[in-house]
């Protein structure tokens, strides 16, 4: 496991931290020489997961959101974790256009975008305990990491 690099961060679930968290993850993966498109894909997916934690998990109360990010060869792994109310039916939640907050103009496309822009998305949640969104993507193929 020589060629791995890890970071994790924890921050207040304030909407003003959404941009910061996207930028931090994007900056961390620059070591893989990602294309602009790949950076946008990762930023969008991370943004969706963080927004869900702020809006759905914590109902806008200020608690903590955690991001774990790992790079192995050309693979990047990112997990967004909250300790909020959890999801009762993950399969249903992940259906495109399904949302429990239509009155707040949520589109129900959050999980759909994560799936569209990442190679793999796995959601683990327990009611009352929180939610962890694990995502994976191959990035910057054709260049060598850790330069």
């Amino acid at each position: 496991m020589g060629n791995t690099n890890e970071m994790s961060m924890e921050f207040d679930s304030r909407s003003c931290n959404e941009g910061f968290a996207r930028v931090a993850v994007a900056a961390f993966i620059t070591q893989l020489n990602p294309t602009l498109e790949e950076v946008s894909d990762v930023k969008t997916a991370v943004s969706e997961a963080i927004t869900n934690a702020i809006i759905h998990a914590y109902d806008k109360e200020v608690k903590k959101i955690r991001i774990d990010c790992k790079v192995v060869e050309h693979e990047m792994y990112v997990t967004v974790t909250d300790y909020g109310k959890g999801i009762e039916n993950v399969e249903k939640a992940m259906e495109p256009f399904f949302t429990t907050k239509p009155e707040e103009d949520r589109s129900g496309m959050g999980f759909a975008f994560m799936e569209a822009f990442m190679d793999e998305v796995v959601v683990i949640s327990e009611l009352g305990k929180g939610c962890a969104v694990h995502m994976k993507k191959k990035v910057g193929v054709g260049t060598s990491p850790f330069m």
Partner: protein
Amino acid sequence: MDYRIQEDYLYVFLPTELDHHSTESIRRECDELLYDNEILHIVFDFGETSFMDSSGIGVLMGRYRMISKLGGDVTAIHVNDRVYKILNLAGLHKVMEISQEKIWNKRM
């Protein structure tokens, strides 16, 4: 945010990053303007926007639902490739005109 009203048109000049954080005020301000003025056409100008996530989709869909009840419409202009892809992914091209062209001068 920047807005401009011209007859029954409301122009909304969107920010660089259209996420949940920035959409909170856009939704509020937009709806106040729609309430106070006789608007039939909403034009979202993406000229400055380089980042958008599903929160942006929510704002556009929400405004579309309101205005279409009045017989009005929504247009998205100056959309870059990335935003275009995201709007299409959410199927918005089925309910509104989306223009990538830079024909209109920015800030009109």
